[in-house]
C-alpha cells in the first residue's frame, strides 16, 4: 500500500506542468528570435545568398559552423542513453530523456540549417534523383537520417509506459487525444515490457556506431579536402571528443534549468551533478588531448602551406577568439569541475554554459580560418572577399535556429514528462529490494 503511494507521488511529481509567467517570457523571447530568423531567411530566399557575407573564399560561414555544432551536441543522446545504459549505469536514468530530446531537436535543426546554406534549396530533391555515393555529403544524408530515426525511437519507446500515467492523471484535456494516440495501446503486460526492453537494447547498440558515423562523416566534409587546418587524419576523433564534451555541457545546463523550474530536486540530485561533472572533466581531457594532437604536430613542422593558417589562428587575427574558446570553453570549465565544490549545481551550470558557447565558437574557428588561408593568395577579388564577418541575416538565422531547438525542447517538456516516470518507479522498486 505504501509502495503504491510512493509510485503515486513520483507520477504526480513528474507530470508535465503548465507554463508559468517565467516560461511564457522565455517562450516569447525564443519566438522573437525564431520570427526574426525566419524573416531573414525569407529575405535570403528572395535575394539569394548575396544577403550573407560569405564570398568565394569564405564560401562556408556560420551556417556550416552551426550545422557542425548541432550535429555535435546531438551526439549526447547516444552517450547518455546508450553508452551509460549499456554499461549498466543506473544513476543516469533521470537524464536519459533530457539527452534524447536534445539529440532529436539538434539533429532536426542541423538538417534545416544545411538547407538554409544551399544556394538552390528548391533543388534539394536532386540529392535523391542524382545522389552519388562517393560524395561525403550523401554519406552525411544517409547517417544523419538514420540517426534521427533511431533517436526518435529511443525517445518514443521509453515514453510509451509513461503514457499510462499521462492518460490517468493529466488534467490537460487538449493534449489527451495525443496521449491516447501515442500510448493507449500500452497495457503494461509482461510481453510489452520485454519487447520494449529488447527494442531499447537493440537501439542502444545500434545508435553508437551511427552516432560515431554522423560526426565522423561531418568531420570528413572538411578532412576530405586538401586545405591547411582540415587536411588531418585526427579530424574524426577530434570532432567526436568535442561533440561528447559539448553534449554533456548541454545536458548539465538543461539539468540545472529543469531541476530549478520544475522543482525536481528529489529526482535530479546533487549526486547527478557530481557524476556528470566527473564525466565532463574526463571528456574535457579527451578533447584537450585531441586538440594538442591537432595543433602540435603541424606547429612542429610548420609546413609552408600551414604556416599562414596556424599563425592566423594562434597569434594572428583569430587568436583572441581561438584562445577564448580554448580557455573559456575547455580549460576553465574543467578547472571548475575538478574540485568537489565546483560540481555543485550552480557552478556546473556556469561551466556548462561556457562549454556550450565555447563549442559554438570553436566550430566557427574550424570553418572560417581555413577558408581564408587558401593555397594560392587571395587575389583578383574585391577587398570584402578577403574577410568574413557574418551579416545580420546570417546571425538572425543562426540564432533563430538555436532558439528553435530550445523551443522544441521547451514544448516537449510541457507535453511529456522530462524525467521518465515508469523507469524512475522501477528503479525505486529495485532499490527497495536490495
Amino acid at each position: 500500500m505504501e509502495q503504491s503511494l510512493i509510485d503515486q507521488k513520483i507520477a504526480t511529481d513528474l507530470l508535465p506542468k503548465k507554463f508559468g509567467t517565467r516560461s511564457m517570457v522565455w517562450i516569447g523571447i525564443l519566438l522573437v528570435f525564431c520570427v526574426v530568423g525566419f524573416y531573414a531567411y525569407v529575405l535570403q530566399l528572395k535575394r539569394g545568398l548575396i544577403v550573407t557575407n560569405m564570398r568565394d573564399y569564405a564560401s562556408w560561414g556560420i551556417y556550416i559552423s552551426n550545422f557542425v555544432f548541432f550535429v555535435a551536441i546531438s551526439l549526447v543522446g547516444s552517450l547518455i542513453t546508450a553508452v551509460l545504459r549499456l554499461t549498466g549505469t543506473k544513476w543516469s536514468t533521470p537524464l536519459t530523456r533530457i539527452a534524447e530530446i536534445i539529440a532529436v531537436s539538434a539533429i532536426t535543426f542541423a538538417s534545416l540549417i544545411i538547407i538554409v546554406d544551399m544556394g538552390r534549396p528548391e533543388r534539394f530533391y536532386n540529392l535523391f534523383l542524382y545522389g552519388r555515393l562517393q560524395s561525403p555529403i550523401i554519406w552525411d544524408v544517409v547517417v544523419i537520417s538514420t540517426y534521427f530515426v533511431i533517436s526518435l525511437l529511443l525517445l518514443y519507446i521509453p515514453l510509451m509506459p509513461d503514457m499510462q500515467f499521462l492518460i490517468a492523471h493529466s488534467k490537460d484535456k487538449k493534449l489527451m487525444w495525443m496521449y491516447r494516440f501515442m500510448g493507449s495501446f500500452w497495457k503494461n503486460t509482461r510481453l510489452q515490457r520485454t519487447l520494449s526492453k529488447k527494442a531499447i537494447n537493440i537501439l542502444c547498440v545500434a545508435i553508437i556506431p551511427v552516432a560515431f558515423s554522423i560526426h565522423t562523416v561531418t568531420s570528413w566534409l572538411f578532412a576530405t579536402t586538401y586545405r591547411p587546418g582540415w587536411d588531418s587524419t585526427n579530424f574524426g576523433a577530434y570532432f567526436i571528443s568535442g561533440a561528447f564534451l559539448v553534449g554533456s555541457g548541454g545536458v548539465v545546463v538543461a539539468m540545472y534549468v529543469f531541476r530549478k523550474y520544475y522543482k525536481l530536486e528529489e529526482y535530479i540530485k546533487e549526486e547527478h551533478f557530481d557524476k556528470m561533472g566527473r564525466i565532463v572533466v574526463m571528456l574535457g581531457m579527451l578533447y584537450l588531448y585531441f586538440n594538442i594532437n591537432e595543433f602540435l604536430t603541424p606547429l612542429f613542422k610548420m609546413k609552408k602551406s600551414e604556416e599562414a593558417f596556424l599563425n592566423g589562428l594562434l597569434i594572428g587575427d583569430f587568436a583572441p577568439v581561438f584562445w577564448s574558446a580554448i580557455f573559456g570553453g575547455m580549460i576553465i570549465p574543467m578547472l571548475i569541475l575538478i574540485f568537489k565544490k565546483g560540481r555543485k549545481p550552480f557552478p556546473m551550470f556556469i561551466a556548462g554554459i561556457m562549454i556550450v558557447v565555447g563549442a559554438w565558437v570553436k566550430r566557427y574557428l574550424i570553418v572560417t580560418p581555413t577558408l581564408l588561408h587558401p593555397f594560392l593568395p587571395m587575389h583578383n577579388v574585391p577587398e570584402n572577399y578577403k574577410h568574413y564577418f557574418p551579416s545580420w541575416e546570417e546571425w538572425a538565422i543562426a540564432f533563430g535556429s538555436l532558439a528553435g531547438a530550445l523551443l522544441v525542447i521547451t514544448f516537449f517538456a510541457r507535453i511529456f514528462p522530462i524525467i521518465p516516470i515508469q523507469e524512475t518507479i522501477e528503479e525505486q522498486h529495485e532499490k527497495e529490494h536490495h
Partner: protein
Amino acid sequence: MDTNNTSRKEFLASIAATGLALAGCSSKGNPFEQTGDGSTELTGEKVKLLSVDGQVIEVDKAYLKPVPELPAVSNSAARKGIPGKKFVMVVDLSRCKNLRKCQAACNHVHHVHTNLNWLKVYPMEQDEHTAPYWQPTTCMHCDEPPCVKVCPVDATFKRQDGIVLIDQDRCIGCRFCMAACPYSIRVFNWEKSDTISEELCAQPYSCESGVPQKIGTVGKCDFCPDMIRKSELPHCVTACPNGTFFFGDLNQDSVSNGSETFRFSELIRDKAGYQLMEDLGTKPSVYYLPPANRNFPFENGLEIDKG
C-alpha cells in the same frame, strides 16, 4: 575591377533573315518569328540579306532582332564530351605581364559578375630570394578532380575529353566543390550577374557555353567547349597579345596559341613544363612553362594589378 565591360554580343546574324522568309510558318516562341503585330516601326534603313532559296532580299532594319544562341549539343552530349580528344593547356609564364586581356575576354563572353573572375592572374613569389612572376590561372581540369569527387549530385563532372564542367541546372549550391578545389578556382553566383542583358538571361542555358550563369550555383573556367566544337581556341588564348596560352589536344600532341604551334611533348620536355601543386595528385591538364628569360620585367604588370 577592370572587367566591367557591359557591351554585349549582338546576334544580328544574317540567319535572322532566313527567319523572315519563313515567317509564314512561324509558331509561338520561334526565335525567327517576325515581331508579329505589325506595330514594328520601320526605320527606312534597308539591309541586304540572303534568303533560304538563295535570293538576295532587302528588308527593313527594324525587322532584325537578336537571335538566341541555341545550345549546339544536348545536355547528355555536353556531359559526354568530344570523343577521342584530351584537351590540355600550356601557359608560358615567361610571356605574361599581367595585361589581363585573357580575364577581360573570358568575363565578357561568359557574362561573369563584376566581382568574379574565372581566370585570375596571381603575382607569385615563392620565397623572398626568388624572382616574382605573373601566373595566369584557369581551371586545371584535373584528371583526378577533387571537386567532382565531392559533388553530391553529379552537377560537376569529368568528360571523356578531359574537361571538367558544371551543369548549373543541376547544381544545388552546397559549395563543397569550392572547399575541395585546392586551386580556389571556383566562384559562386551569389547574385544574378550584373553584366548580362535580359535577353541573354532568357536564352536557354548550356553547360558548354556557361551562359547564362545561374544564381545560387557554382561557376568556373570551362575551357570554352563551345568554341572547341567550332574548332576554335578558347577566348583567353586568342585574347592574349603575347601568346601566353597554348591550347590543344594531347592525343594529337600539339598545342597552339593561334600564331605558333608546338608539339606538346617537346614543349614540355624542352622548357621543363610542370603542373601546379603536382604533389596533391590531382593530375592537372594545365601545364606551366617556368618564367625563364622573361619577355617583360615583373614590374610592368604592377600598375594593372589592383589586388
